[in-house]
């Protein structure tokens, strides 16, 4: 057979590309197949409106593993990360809370609201850094199987146990709370300022179907402290040219290592021969064969669509059906004629250069969630706004701007109506919400792109529009992601692997899943 590859990677998202790059660097003959005309999956830049480059879905960088940046030498391949400083939270009483990387300045700002909280902020920061250091190595580890007697697995479990045991008692206490508590309950112990707790807890709910008071949301507070750029903790950033530039840099690294990448190559089926993956059939009908198929798309697409339920062991099929997606967020991208003018702090200025978080209070956040629980999008949603054109002028014409609005909650399943009927109405709600804080927003809008969970599913292949390819809740993390017993990137189908966000550690533009999977494949296929 002429067109025989060592590995076919399904999906040209950042994880698929990372996976391909590492495999190619190890000398494997790799082919990446992407359904869309552009690479990047959810990490993509598109000029939806002439002259304006939207980071259509994912919009900030923070968790991209530094070892990946190093090992793939991404800066040489064009990756440039521009710091994104601060989170500005307008309040309903006309005041605001503005947190920046400069600790002293943030401290002064918090003191404006509460002296006690300013004190606590130091302690809090220290404690969270400790925790982040504790959790970090777990990110790049293949989850052990706690039910098997395999000595390696037992060793890993023991390693985790010992690590925990070695923590100072204070840290143990914090760690347990972080893993199990709600973001608000956790923050209540440190702070009294409502808006501070609200805007901090927001990071705990992103991409989940949980509220800031739901247990399990505290854990994600850590991610903020794990975001690393050049090893520096807690800094967030934008990549020049939009998040698509990250994918392109990785793709470039992969190509340089010899990987072949095809776009507009949608896959119809994964070819099986006596229970083993042999290759893929494209929608075009072409058949391509390989020793290994590595899928970066979510389990529902991989197994229910491309493999077919009839070929799955029943236990596994049931587990996959239990795996929860239920996307909860939407995205609104705007092309603006100028800058929004915030009521609480009029005029342009550095406060617009960071994230603008519409999370004015804990009750506001919780009520937004209540709407979603009963099957409607939030009447007043939580919105995370970034204006990348202030940091990276290349994404919009001079004097004009791009505004990226991440919106939660927008439940995939609506109780009344369909997303196709509600799309624009939803978009209006988002604009109305922003207008309460920046009344001039309406006049500025030159173009508006509204992405509902349904659009994320259709256009980007994210089942039920879940941006993490499945909820990041405790029962779907680590050795339970995506299915009990199948957290080691292998699948019940021999030679078929998973390398997407639906595997440990999942979520975010981290690339860890793609890298861990590559390591597993190389180990198995020596």
């Amino acid at each position, binding site marked *: 057979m002429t067109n025989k590859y060592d590995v076919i990677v399904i999906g040209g998202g950042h994880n698929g590309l990372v996976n391909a790059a590492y495999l190619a660097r190890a000398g494997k003959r790799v082919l990446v197949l992407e359904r869309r005309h552009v690479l990047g999956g959810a990490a993509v830049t598109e000029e939806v409106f002439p002259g304006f480059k939207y980071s259509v879905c994912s919009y900030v960088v923070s968790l991209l593993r530094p070892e990946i940046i190093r090992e793939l030498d991404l800066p040489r391949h064009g990756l440039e990360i521009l710091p994104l400083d601060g989170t500005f939270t307008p309040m309903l009483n006309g005041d605001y809370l503005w947190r920046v990387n400069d600790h002293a300045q943030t401290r002064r700002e918090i003191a404006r609201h509460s002296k006690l909280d300013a004190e606590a902020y130091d302690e809090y920061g220290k404690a969270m850094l400790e925790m982040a250091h504790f959790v970090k190595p777990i990110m790049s580890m293949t989850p052990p199987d*706690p*039910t098997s007697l395999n000595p390696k697995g037992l060793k890993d479990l023991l390693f985790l146990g010992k690590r925990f045991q070695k923590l100072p008692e204070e840290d143990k206490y914090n760690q347990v709370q972080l893993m199990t508590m709600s973001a608000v309950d956790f923050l209540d112990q440190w702070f009294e300022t409502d808006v501070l707790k609200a805007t901090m807890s927001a990071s705990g709910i992103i991409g989940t179907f949980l509220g800031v008071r739901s247990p399990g949301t505290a854990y994600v507070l850590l991610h903020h402290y794990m975001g690393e750029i050049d090893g520096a903790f807690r800094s967030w950033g934008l990549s020049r040219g939009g998040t698509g530039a990250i994918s392109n840099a990785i793709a470039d690294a992969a190509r340089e290592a010899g990987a072949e990448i095809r776009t507009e190559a949608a896959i119809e089926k994964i070819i099986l021969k006596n229970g083993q993956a042999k290759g893929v059939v494209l929608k075009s009908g072409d058949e391509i064969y390989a020793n290994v198929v590595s899928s970066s798309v979510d389990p529902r697409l991989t197994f229910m669509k491309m493999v077919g339920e009839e070929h799955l062991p029943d236990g596994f099929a049931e587990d996959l059906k239990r795996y929860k997606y239920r996307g909860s967020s939407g995205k609104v991208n705007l092309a603006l004629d100028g800058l929004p003018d915030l009521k609480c702090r009029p005029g342009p200025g550095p406060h617009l250069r960071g994230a603008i978080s519409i999370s004015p209070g804990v009750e506001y956040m919780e009520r937004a969630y209540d709407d979603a*629980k009963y099957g409607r999008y939030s009447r007043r949603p939580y919105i995370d706004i970034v204006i990348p054109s202030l940091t990276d002028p290349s994404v919009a014409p001079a004097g004009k701007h791009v505004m990226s609005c991440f919106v939660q909650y927008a439940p995939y399943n609506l109780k009344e109506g369909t997303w196709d009927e509600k799309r624009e109405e939803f978009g209006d709600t988002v604009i109305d919400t922003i207008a309460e804080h920046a009344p001039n927003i309406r006049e500025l809008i030159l173009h508006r792109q509204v992405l509902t969970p349904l659009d994320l599913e259709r256009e980007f292949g994210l089942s039920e529009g879940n941006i993490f390819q499945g909820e990041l809740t405790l029962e779907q993390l680590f050795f339970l992601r995506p299915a009990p017993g199948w957290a080691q990137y292998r699948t019940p189908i021999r030679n078929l692997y998973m390398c997407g966000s639906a595997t440990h550690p999942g979520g975010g533009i981290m690339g860890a899943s793609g890298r861990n999977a590559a390591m597993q494949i190389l180990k198995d296929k020596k």
Partner: protein
Amino acid sequence: MPNYDVIIIGAGHNGLVTACYLAKAGLKTLVLERREIVGGAAITEEIHPGFRCSTLAHSAAPFFAPIVKDLQLTRHGLKIMTPPVRVLALSPERPAIGIYHDTARTISELEAVSSRDANNYPEFERSFARIGKMLAPLLATTPPAIEHPSAGELWNLSKLGRSFRGLGKKDAYRLLRWGPMAVADLVAEWFESETLRAIVAARGIFGAFAGPWSAGTSAGLLWQAAMDGHAIGASSFVRGGMGALTGALANAARDAGVEIRTGSDAAKIDINDEGAAKVSLKTGEEISARVFVSNADPRTTFLKLVDPVWLDPSFVLKVRNYRATGVSAKINLALSGLPSFTGVEDKNGAGKLSGRIQIGPDIDYLERAFDAAKYGDYSPRPYLDITIPSLLDPDLAPAGAHVMSVYVQYAPYKLKDGDWNSRREEFADSVVDVINNYAPNFKELIIARQVITPPDLEQTYGMSGGHIHHGEQSLDQSFTFRPLIGWAQYRTPIKGLYLCGAGTHPGGGVSGRPGANAAREIIKDFKKRDRK
């Protein structure tokens, strides 16, 4: 020379259990109870002339069988009654569903609702029975020290590890998944009938500041299964009401030589460099002992009974952050007759109404009830756990009449508008209205009612925050973390002071297990001392 070996503060069921075991081990033990009657939250009081009712807890958790045997409680007057029905869930438009101890009867009832659910039910019961069996030993175990586990603890852990593997992959992973899961998700995996889903979910949220959509609420089912091998709320009652249980415990205690003083309010535990030395009563009287055991909840113990100067500030902070905000209230009613619930053909009631009666027909109902509490209001449509004990125990009420015990959730300790004293009756009326929707003749039957709000639970019955479990039983406040990490072995930072209440492992519910576990640790320490 101290007056006593041990002084136990609080004559709740756990305090009495601890007392019994200590006295049987030959320790001179005194129990101090603030109120005029023993029993704490497991009591029977006359709510209206001729009508007696379990004032607070109305069902044994169930009470731990080995304790009944060890302390010969049957001989001391304990009679447990178990009706055929566990729970009967009422529903406004759908037929009521009964869950019975008899699986076959349950299945035949479920057939009418959903054959799919009827099919899944046996495996649901079995898998929880299997997992419960595996977890059960944990309830009788002192949680291991994380810092320096002893050889014995490591041995127990390895035993636990083996029995965990013994579950087999499927159940083992179920256990791992279910622990942190929202109970609403768990029931959706098993059943399609909303009422059945709600019946199971109710166990997960009982007494918790959480709704069925809150992660971690499935753990409540696992504990329940560990307690009595079933995920669904148990219905085991005590003849004479819960007071008869603590009455029997008190008899057993006195029989074993325990001295019990009621009307004795312990104001402070006096501490010196050697540790706890004396307890001083409100009256000013001081009594010394070698060891003190608090049946009170952790917050009361460390923030009221003990002078914080003897505690490490970070420990005090942790105690302050220990979550114990109650969400439950209780309404006890004297009824002139048996309410007739629509859609329940059971005139004499003995068959279907004699267990728990649940109002809380679907998951959204339960979640909305919780929503109200989140914003500081009581639920306009609360989750109700009702019992009519006089059906099995006619002596509790005059002939033909009945007592009804209504557990109400959610009723948050702190109200956003007004306070509980000003809104008490309005609250009770709303609960009565809710019941009346399910039993149209209900209101006419009411002779008298007793309303117990969260602040009452705190002031009258001494549960701080009005939390019936002495603190949330969330993952971060369970097992080795109950009440606090590093202090889950019934000992406290103060030498000679122990905890034995629901604020310790395995927590709330009238099981007597914390008391028994605490006694074991205390006796261990006495032996160590005496060897020296």
